[in-house]
């Protein structure tokens, strides 16, 4: 997976509602139709990094099946960062697409 991509995916996942690590991993897997295989182990350092930068905040809650879990929600700063990253990503994708289809005209 591309460096930094995981961060955007996590932020995107959290835009709907707060979630804990397990959910985040599964949601990313589902949404990408299992193309993006998130190694569950590598998720936690990424979460830590995002929390450290103030893009997400954590609280302890109770999971669907009644277990204690650490939930994350998006902070306003995280929201801004997500917008920034998304547009950057869009530009990147457009550029790559253009390069890959040079003989359009």
């Amino acid at each position, binding site marked *: 997976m591309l460096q930094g991509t995981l961060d955007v995916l996590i932020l995107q996942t959290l835009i709907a509602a707060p979630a804990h690590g397990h959910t985040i991993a599964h949601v990313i897997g589902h949404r990408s139709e299992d193309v993006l295989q998130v190694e569950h*182990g590598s998720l936690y350092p990424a979460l830590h990094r995002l929390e*450290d930068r103030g893009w997400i905040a954590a609280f302890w809650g109770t999971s669907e099946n009644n*277990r204690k879990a*650490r939930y994350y929600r998006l902070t306003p700063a995280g929201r801004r960062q997500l917008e920034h990253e998304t547009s950057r990503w869009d530009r990147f994708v457009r550029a790559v697409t253009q390069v890959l289809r040079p003989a359009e005209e």
Partner: protein
Amino acid sequence: MRLLRWLARARWDRERSRELESYLDVEAADNVARGISPADARDAARRKLGNLTRIREEIHEMNGIGWLDRFSGDLRYAARTLRGNAGFATVAIMSLALGIGANTAIFQLLDAVRLRTLPVVRPQEIVQLRIAGGNSGMGMNGPFGGLTRPQWEEIGRQQQAVDLFAWSIGGARVGPEQRGAPAVNVSAGYFPVLGVPPWRGRFFTSADDEATCPATRAVVSYDYWQREMGGVELTPASRLLVDGRNLELIGVAPPGFRGLVVGDRFDVAFPLCRPREVRNDVFHTLVMGRLRDGWSAARATEHLRAISPGIMAATQITGYTDATHRQYREFKLEAAESPRGVSELRERYDTSLWLLLAITGLVLLIACANIANLMLARATAREREIAVRLAIGASRRRLIAQLLTESALIAAVGAALGVAVAAGLSRVLVAALSSENRQIALTLDTDWRVFGFATIVAALTCVVFGLAPAFRGTRAAPVDAMKSGGRGSTDGRERYALQRVLVIGQIAVSLVLLVGAALFVRSFYNLTTFDAGVRQEGISVVFMGFGRDEVPRERVKPLIAELVAEVRALPGVENVATTTHVPLMGGSWGHGVKAGVADESTRFTWVSPTYFATVDQPLLAGRRFSETDTPTSAPVAIVNEAFLRTFFPRQPNPLGKTLMQYAEPDYPETVYEIVGVVKDAQYNGLRGDVPPSVLVPASQFPAPQGGLAMLIRSANADAMLATVRRHLKQAHPQFDIDGVVLQQRVRESLVRERLMALLSGFFGVLAALLATIGLYGVIAYIMQRRRNEVGIRLALGAQPGQIVRMVLRDAGMLVVVGVAVGTALAVVAGRGAETLLFGLRPTDVATFAGATLLLATIAFVASAIPAMRAARVDPMRALRQD
């Protein structure tokens, strides 16, 4: 921010652990829901998550500050390793601390006495004006090459090279308790020319220089002002009680200014007032100055030489022999640079201090060699450990950083202890140099330059020798290092070449130090047991000053007789004598003498008839003085053997011969008949040749006598001194009374010798100890490495004794070579110490033999212990190991 996170990371780790636990719980529950058995569910969850510890580590790492983490980790690891190897750490750290501390302390002292300039403005411009080559003991002399007051005044009128000032050393009874205090008499120019401003009030003016003594104003030092006067602000009404008179206290000198004598201080300064009787043969005035713009000391000397004849003619000495008068007129003045002031300490301790610095330098060298050896042995022993770490993926850089941390830790702890050692040792040194009668005032701040130098040297040793094997180890392919580590039957001799050279060096240097120590200790012993020819035990000396006006001249001799009788009558007194010169206490009193074949200055002492019995100076021929020798009877003299050797070398019987004493002011020309010969006795100190001396009856003393020195013999000189002082103070409160115990004073005069004996002894033993530890370390280390070899030898039938002999032969070679080199070095080094020795030569065979024997013995023990331990090894276990 990062630091906060770094500090909070233990909490973070707990938080993450809980989170990961919760993931496992959730995932396991999901798995169960998917139909996996509860037992496998959790394992599956765990597999999915991956390596838990690695995740935690990754997060931990993110919270860290890379270098700080690595450094603190290395530091903790180093501390743990050193704690695990306490013996090694202690020896290394103590070697460092002693080496660094001793060097710093000795250098501080040397710097204070020898190198530091005066705390005045531009000290390089300060010069002393003195007679080139000295005045050959003419007239009356103080220390430091003084001039006469008329000379000073005449120089002031004629020279243009310097801004001049003059001062002399004095003493006074000061304050409400009239305690004796060190004082200086200074001209008006003294403070302004030195650039020392008043701290309070003002200093003297030229009117004070012109005023006739006694002085009416005084200035006190800052220390005295603080200590004795509580720093009370001065007012125009401030007074200071000096020698029974109230003087106007006009100023306070600034803190830190203690005068121009190194190691001395003044409490009070008086004006250099004009004595009622200005004499041109009293050389007590120190004339100094600051070079004016454009003048160098050389140019000033040229100028002074040119005007010298005029100055000498204008201040001509009178009342001496023609030869003396002629010699005086030939005197040439010079300007000597004295940015460091004048010093008696410097002259007395110069050689000693440099020698001590050399000694401590050698100790540092041995300490470094020791550390090098220890570090080498350790690092080599760890080659295998290093190889293993390299093999499992440690980077070379990390390994070196870690070894470096360990060396640095040793160096840092050693240096910190070194500061403590330096501070303690300087205090001991100053205390050792001071005596009850002479407090030494030196500013001894920790000298960070030297401390830095010693520390860097020691730290570099640590680092270089700690790292060298690490480099070697990390270069080698790990497999090779692991293979050779301990498995090879015997290591080549070359492997220890460096260690061997270091041990040889240590033995050599410590032999030099041991020989030095033995020489100084024996010198000191020789001095304390030396028969000076006069009795020291049980002699109390009492000085009395009559004051010029209090006793009329014709009353002095009867008064002395009364005083002696009073003291003689005190219980416990065995004998009492008077003398004009107390032996062994420094000082010198001479007159020109012509007799027999010689014509030269000779020591003169006027003594009472009881003198010879009091100090046990045996009469060899003729008679002692008696009551029949009176002021009006024929002048008679008793001479010593040295006198006969000089003046009557081929006269078997000098009795009845005469000697002529040349005229001097107050001492008219007199011809004495020699009536007795006494055995030679040391004159003003234990050292030095006995000078030709003439003893004359006190009753025939020709000059006005302002005081008296009494020698009192008893069983207990201390108690007797107190008794006599008490009695005299009560019976004659109008007189100044002072006293000392002769033996105590003589001991005090051996301060330099005691210091050298003490310190060189201490450092000598220390050096031997360090060298022994070094030898022990190397032998023990080699034996450790040769366990397999020893095991095989034993298995093949070698006797343990043979093993021990083999090791001892090996160690013996090191000692023999070390001793040979050390002996050569000690012979060379001994020359530098020759002048400090007493009663033995620097190449004293017994000393060398003793030091060698001592060193060989401890070296034997140091190598026998590891050898015996090696020989006791069980062959099977030695071979099976590794």
